[in-house]
């Protein structure tokens, strides 16, 4: 069987074409968002919000509202609760995050189990990429496009917020508002990725691409195209592998991302573990080696 066959055969099925479309859309918009999440240091927050949206999605299904609306409500609720617990008790932030998101996630599980629907719990948890209907495709596409537009419009402000929020204050912007914008987008984008890899693995698409790109370049503007490119390529490879080996598609999308990250971690020309070591003794050009930010 030729490579062409391997690539083309799955495309004769409509469900595979839809799966690939949704995967690429989710990969691109998640990867873009992940560039900022990784730099702000909000990976854990991404984990929390992407899990906490579950009850929102379920309730939205019950009342027939758009999933994004429910996700947004519970994403915001999670962040508010985390902030409240951290601010008004002696519990530290990591513990507050752990308490809030697991509780909300569990609430989602309970709701799914008591609410009669055709939706299979495992589809929500692990994704249902092969079961994407045309109307799903439209809804996900619209959300992805909206998130994409906001991210590109606010791109530079978000970068400023990530790099120097005090300066943002100083020129009359509101870092608080920018932070909320980022968290709101996080909740909406979680809905997009939910269909592809499921609630449990959404956070992978929200962290790995940005981290991979961060190891490949010192230019943020380059991160913004490297991350989506790498993420969608890895995701498509993952879907193909899952087709041919009849294995979990969401699982393979994330495993491919992780394997590629490992390669970059080891061999990135600039910041790879192996390449960097070899280069270090031969660069005494007086530049200060950047100290890790605590």
């Amino acid at each position, binding site marked *: 069987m030729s490579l062409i066959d391997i690539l083309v055969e799955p495309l004769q099925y409509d469900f595979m074409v839809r799966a690939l479309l949704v995967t690429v859309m989710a990969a691109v918009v998640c990867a873009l968002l992940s560039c900022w999440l990784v730099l702000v240091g909000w990976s854990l927050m991404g984990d929390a919000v992407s899990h906490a949206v579950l009850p929102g999605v379920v309730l939205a299904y019950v009342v027939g509202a758009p999933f994004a609306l429910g996700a947004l409500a519970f994403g915001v609720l999670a962040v508010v609760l985390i902030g409240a617990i951290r601010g008004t008790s002696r519990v530290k932030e990591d513990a507050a995050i752990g308490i809030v998101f697991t509780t909300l996630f569990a609430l989602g599980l309970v709701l799914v189990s008591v609410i009669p629907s055709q939706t299979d719990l495992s589809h929500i948890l692990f994704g249902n990429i092969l079961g994407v209907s045309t109307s799903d495709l439209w809804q996900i596409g619209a959300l992805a496009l909206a998130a994409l537009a906001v991210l590109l*419009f606010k791109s530079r402000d978000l970068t400023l917020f990530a790099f*120097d929020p005090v300066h943002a204050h100083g020129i009359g912007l509101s870092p608080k508002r920018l932070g909320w914008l980022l968290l709101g987008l996080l909740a909406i984008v979680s809905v997009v990725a939910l269909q592809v890899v499921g609630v449990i693995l959404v956070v992978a698409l929200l962290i790995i691409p940005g981290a991979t790109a961060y190891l490949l370049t010192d230019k943020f503007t380059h991160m913004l195209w490297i991350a989506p490119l790498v993420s969608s390529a890895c995701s498509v490879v993952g879907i193909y592998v899952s087709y041919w080996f009849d294995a979990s598609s969401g699982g393979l999308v994330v495993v491919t991302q992780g394997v590629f990250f490992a390669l970059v971690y080891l061999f990135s020309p600039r910041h790879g573990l192996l390449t960097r070591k070899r280069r270090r003794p031969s660069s005494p050009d007086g530049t*200060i080696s950047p100290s890790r930010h605590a």
Partner: protein
Amino acid sequence: MTPALEVDGVSVAYGDVEALTECSLTLEQGQVTGLIGMNGSGKSTLFKSVMGVVTPQAGRVRVAGAPAREARRAQRIAYVPQSEDVDWDFPLSVWDVVMMGRYGRMGPMRRPRKADRAAVSEALERVGLVDLAGRQIGALSGGQRKRAFVARGIAQEASLMLLDEPFAGVDKRSEGTIVALLRELAAEGHTVLVSTHDLHALPALADQAILLLRRVLYQGDVAGALEPQNLTRAFGLDLPDSGDGGESA
């Protein structure tokens, strides 16, 4: 003449901890002022109050006669952060960082226009970093990093410049370069407020000094600030009772 910065009775508390207690000071335009105090004396809180990061429980801050909030929107206040508050691995070039000084003057998408690029070029030239404009911000020496942030303030065309510990981790020669740069800016009418531990740099740097310990203990010429009895008060050696009406229990 309207003062460049007026801090009037500003109090800030974090929970039960008072960081500033009815702190008042006035800076005239075109002067370099050294802000001296030990850790926890309220220097950072004072800066944060001017920058709008913390909202004082009492008192008011005015910049060039306008409330601080308006002054920030009018791009009048620039800030050079402490080294440890910056993520030096952040994937931005020196050019990108200086361009951020222009954001408040751009449209909502922050697209640089010709005037913005010209201002950034000019600012980089002023601080002598033109050749390093393309470098990642962390690939600079300690002194160059500070100058990059000063360039951001110059590009911003701010009239008041706050520098938080600019000499920490900077070698003597770079310190001299920064001092000369700040003196030039003051001569052009900028008002510069520098918090520093480095008392040796003060006489060459500052027109006046302020000793801070939750409130202003001393404001006047540098020689006076460096007198032992003033320094001991500022660094809290004769606490708990300073004998000057210390009503802050």
